């Protein structure tokens, strides 16, 4: 299991050091500094083995977190734990920075004592932790409160405490998708997928039982079988095939596996209910058509057309097209029909920004790039043209069908809950090779 956990700043100074196992000594702290942080080169592997000691490391802004072990640990678990550790710290004191860590080092030690015991991760749900790791001491608690805390920390519903009350029961549901594309210069889709998340903010009283439904093809087809053939045909069109999905630990996985229904008792506040991935019938909101022509050795002509491909009534926002330029660029002239375009020498790219664009429209940019003659033998790698945007629909076609809330003990019903649903589609890695 994890033998020790260290946090460093970018200079390699230790900010936090907690050793859990006897086989990890103080010299491990220095070994990591010398071999990884001070090596100052690109990280070639997130797991580094130095003198039979394995270091798992992740970096957040300029802070390094390293978990150290000499045993054959579950590697995926160690990384997941480091991520979780970051989440917990962020939930307690905001951004992970040197200053924040130094300011909260006592708290961090207290957290580390609680969520990692002898190197074994323990309950690390912030909701539960915040009930008893408060930096205030726990003298004042009554016996009932204490046992409530412990039963929550160890309980089956470790992510929610009892006795939550809201005057207004409210639910916010965001379907956030990021659409990824890799297209060949000829316009052929090399790979495309949507990775989506359903993020919820729930402000509900008591211990509500929720059921979430969407236009999942498997569910719709199953229901379709019961109804008339006509129904099945109609709904079949609107359903989507989900390649795979993963759920927050509150969702009953065995129920999903057997009935494909998503039921859960939600944590309080914001959390990610599910993640999913689709690859079929994706609506690609934009098409990028590049044209690059080398004119002699010192000039490049670039023309890029973007086409929006969705309902004309909808508006895409925050559109940004990034056209890479060679390292030996000396000057750039750009003309664009819409928005603003600028050559950014420091980023080696022309950045073209458009605030808004309706569906089924087209826009174009052309640029002339002057090059310095070089005798560098190596060709320019021609990085792909990338794009950023935001659209008010789900490119996967996912629709929320219902979200039902049942709380048998308290007197509010599903109808009393105010529910908000929103769809946002963003670009993930949306690239077209040129």
């Amino acid at each position: 299991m994890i033998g020790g956990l260290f946090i460093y700043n970018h200079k390699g100074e230790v900010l936090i050091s907690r050793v859990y196992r006897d086989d990890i000594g103080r010299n491990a702290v220095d070994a990591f500094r010398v071999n990884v942080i001070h090596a100052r080169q690109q990280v070639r592997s997130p797991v580094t083995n130095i003198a039979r000691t394995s270091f798992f490391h992740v970096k957040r802004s300029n802070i390094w977190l390293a978990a150290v072990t000499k045993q054959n640990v579950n590697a995926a678990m160690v990384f997941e734990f480091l991520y979780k550790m970051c989440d917990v710290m962020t939930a307690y004191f905001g951004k992970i920075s040197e200053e924040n860590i130094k300011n909260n080092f006592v708290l961090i030690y207290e957290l580390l004592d609680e969520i990692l015991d002898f190197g074994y991760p323990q309950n690390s749900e912030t909701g539960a932790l915040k009930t008893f790791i408060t930096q205030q001491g726990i003298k004042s608690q009554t016996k009932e409160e204490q046992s409530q805390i412990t039963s929550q920390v160890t309980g089956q519903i470790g992510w929610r405490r009892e006795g939550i009350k809201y005057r207004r029961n409210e639910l916010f549901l965001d379907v956030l998708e990021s659409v990824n594309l890799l297209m060949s210069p000829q316009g052929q889709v090399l790979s495309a997928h949507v990775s989506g998340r359903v993020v919820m903010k729930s402000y509900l009283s008591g211990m509500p039982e929720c059921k979430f439904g969407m236009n999942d093809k498997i569910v719709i087809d199953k229901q379709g079988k019961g109804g008339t053939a006509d129904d099945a045909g109609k709904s079949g069109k609107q359903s989507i095939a989900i390649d795979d999905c993963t759920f927050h630990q509150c969702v009953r996985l065995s129920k999903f596996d057997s009935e494909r229904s998503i039921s859960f008792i939600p944590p309080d506040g914001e959390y990610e209910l599910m993640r999913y991935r689709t690859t079929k019938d994706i609506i690609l909101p934009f098409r990028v058509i590049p044209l690059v022509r080398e004119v002699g050795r010192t000039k490049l002509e670039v023309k890029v057309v973007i086409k929006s491909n969705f309902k004309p009534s909808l508006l895409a926002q925050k559109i940004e097209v990034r056209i890479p330029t060679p390292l030996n660029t000396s000057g750039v002239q750009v003309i664009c029909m819409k928005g603003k375009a600028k050559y950014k020498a420091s980023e080696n790219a022309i950045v073209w920004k458009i605030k808004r664009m309706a569906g089924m429209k087209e826009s174009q940019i052309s640029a002339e790039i002057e090059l310095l003659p070089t005798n560098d033998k190596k060709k320019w790698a021609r990085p792909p043209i990338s794009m950023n945007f935001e659209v008010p629909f789900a490119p996967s076609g996912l629709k929320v069908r219902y979200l039902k809330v049942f709380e048998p003990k308290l007197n509010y019903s599903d109808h009393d809950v105010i529910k908000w649903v929103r769809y946002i589609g963003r670009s993930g890695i949306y690239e077209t090779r040129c």
Partner: protein
Amino acid sequence: MTDSKYFTTNKKGEIFELKAELNNEKKEKRKEAVKKVIAAMTVGKDVSSLFPDVVNCMQTDNLELKKLVYLYLMNYAKSQPDMAIMAVNSFVKDCEDPNPLIRALAVRTMGCIRVDKITEYLCEPLRKCLKDEDPYVRKTAAVCVAKLHDINAQMVEDQGFLDSLRDLIADSNPMVVANAVAALSEISESHPNSNLLDLNPQNINKLLTALNECTEWGQIFILDCLSNYNPKDEREAQSICERVTPRLSHANSAVVLSAVKVLMKFLELLPKDSDYYGTLLKKLSPPLVTLLSGEPEVQYVALRNINLIVQKRPEILKQEIKVFFVKYNDPIYVKLEKLDIMIRLASQANIAQVLAELKEYATEVDVDFVRKAVRAIGRCAIKVEQSAERCVSTLLDLIQTKVNYVVQEAIVVIRDIFRKYPNKYESIIATLCENLDSLDEPDARAAMIWIVGEYAERIDNADELLESFLEGFHDESTQVQLTLLTAIVKLFLKKPSETQELVQQVLSLATQDSDNPDLRDRGYIYWRLLSTDPVTAKEVVLSEKPLISEETDLIEPTLLDELICHIGSLASVYHKPPNAFVEGSHGIHQHSADQFAIMKQYFSVLQVWLPATKAKGLEIAGTFSRRQGHMYMDMTFINKALQHMTDFAIQFNKNSFGVIPTTPLPIHTPLMPNQSIDISLPLSTIGPVMKMDPLNNLQVAVKNIIDVFYFSCLIPLNIFFVEDGKMERQVFLVTWKDIPNENELQYQIKECHLNADTVSGKLQNNNIFTIAKRNVEGQDMLYQSLKLTNGIWILAELRIQPGNPNYTVTNPFFSTDIVFAAHIARSE
């Protein structure tokens, strides 16, 4: 909150000042001071001299301060063991605190203090905490047993903590169960032979129930433990799989990977033609792909594991090659791994896409990555014959770029292509020769020299080319020197008239001026060959070379099987067995739960059942064993023939106990010449029965691509002794009396120097149970029972006289005396 100020005090006399502050009257001041001490400790300053002052601050009801002092104690107690004793009282008191959080804190911290005297005091509180009413305390205590075991294993055993821990597996709280499982798994690693975890169907059921309810981390502990279980039959395997599959949708990638591990292992036990087998395979693919949308570090772990999975079961991901295409922004370690998997999945169906990608990658920036991409193109050519031509032309394009390292890498792979498809692409040699001067790496130079030598007859100026390398002969690496020597000899054999001088030059360079023994030896051999018999020389040097195999750098099958048992762990990331990087790791075999590995511990002596001479080169050695309630036939297959062997199958003749194999012979890969494979064939006794002579004789037929072979072997009867062979005392008494005297047999076991207790312990390990023991006139009498798989009970009386090494066995049933004799001998 500005705790960061504690990090900045850096002046001299700091320790002295801290000492004063720690003894300040005001509580707040003392707390401040302890914080400063911890900050100093963090950055590596030695503050151990403040020990007594810090410990003095322990008596407080401020929990924050208490935790800080504990933190200090954990760090320095070892260096100040005598002082640490001062803290014991406080710990013991805290273990009785009404607040469960404080009880848990105390027991948790105490376990981290590695001082013998403190450990002694830990036992009583720990015992109480293991039975605490609060689950939070129990789950902490469970881990504490593992801590204590790490400090003093003997004490944990003597105090009976292992039993308490085992009891916790049945705890009502899932988190307690999970921590108990984690602790037991860790402890059992250092006791490779004990069956600490006691995985039986009831316990497995408890774990599977807890799996649905505990935290994500707990699920990982439980899944990792489940993967060590060997289900007794395919039905059990399937039902476990069914309950594990929902975990594939968990948001935590470690839960997913551990579930994949369990499923990958149990897949082996399922019949390949069943519907469920197919469904399960299909279910494995989407979660693996999803892992690639995680953070880069987890992606890396996932990719290293997928690399193993596609080698073991390529069918799972064969449709998914696109997800392994490299993204421009992927970290380099992700890129390199994806590339590896792309090659493994490359096939005729997708080769066009793969090649287009690889060509793209070959123009990237990172040198390692580009080289690997070029190498990958070569591997594609070798793997997918139809694509060879396109690969070669792609490589030629890349050579035209004149980027030095690209050219060198391309030449190395082209040599391999020539070896795979001889006499097919020689037309490109001219292009290769143009780049002779730019080659500065030994690999590339050697490859080029090999090509020139191999095709010397078609290269007009081959002698000039090789001569140019000869100039700096002594500065070359050994690899280049050896290749050059061979190439020139080849050239001479092909064009003897023009190259006499050259060959003499190289031979003298190699034999007279070199101090490398390999080089000298090779030089002398060529020299003698050439001078005695040029015709033979030709036959030897220019003989046809074996084609290189399609798949290179595959992990060796036995290692692959072991690594599959370690999916998700560090071993799977390094692609090395744990003992290669874990210090003093014992009981790896047990830990890996690798069926083959366990076997080696139980019976290291294999009998040769089928000698190679009788089976056209196939040798089978084996033994039988019983592990966790299942019977196995453990065999080693060795290929001593010159050809490879495939299509293995096994069949048993009808036999006395109805023994049949429950799975087909688990040999899926061809067995290469001089290779061996260890397998463990699970057996059951539900087959047809026929009395054999001797009773335990088993006739076996093994088939492979060459022929069918027959052999017979004797099954040691003890593997038929079932675990529930302990007869009720009363029943035993009645049965014993009912048996007529004429059915009784007596037998003597000679030279057995054991006392009654040891004997009964050893017998129990083999499922022979002692029902009663009495002492008559100085003799120990042991009454024992055992049950065979076919439900027959066997009773025995064992008489031991102290000082007499010969035992007398009275056996009221038929001739099982032989069994006993054989048995005691074995259990020694």
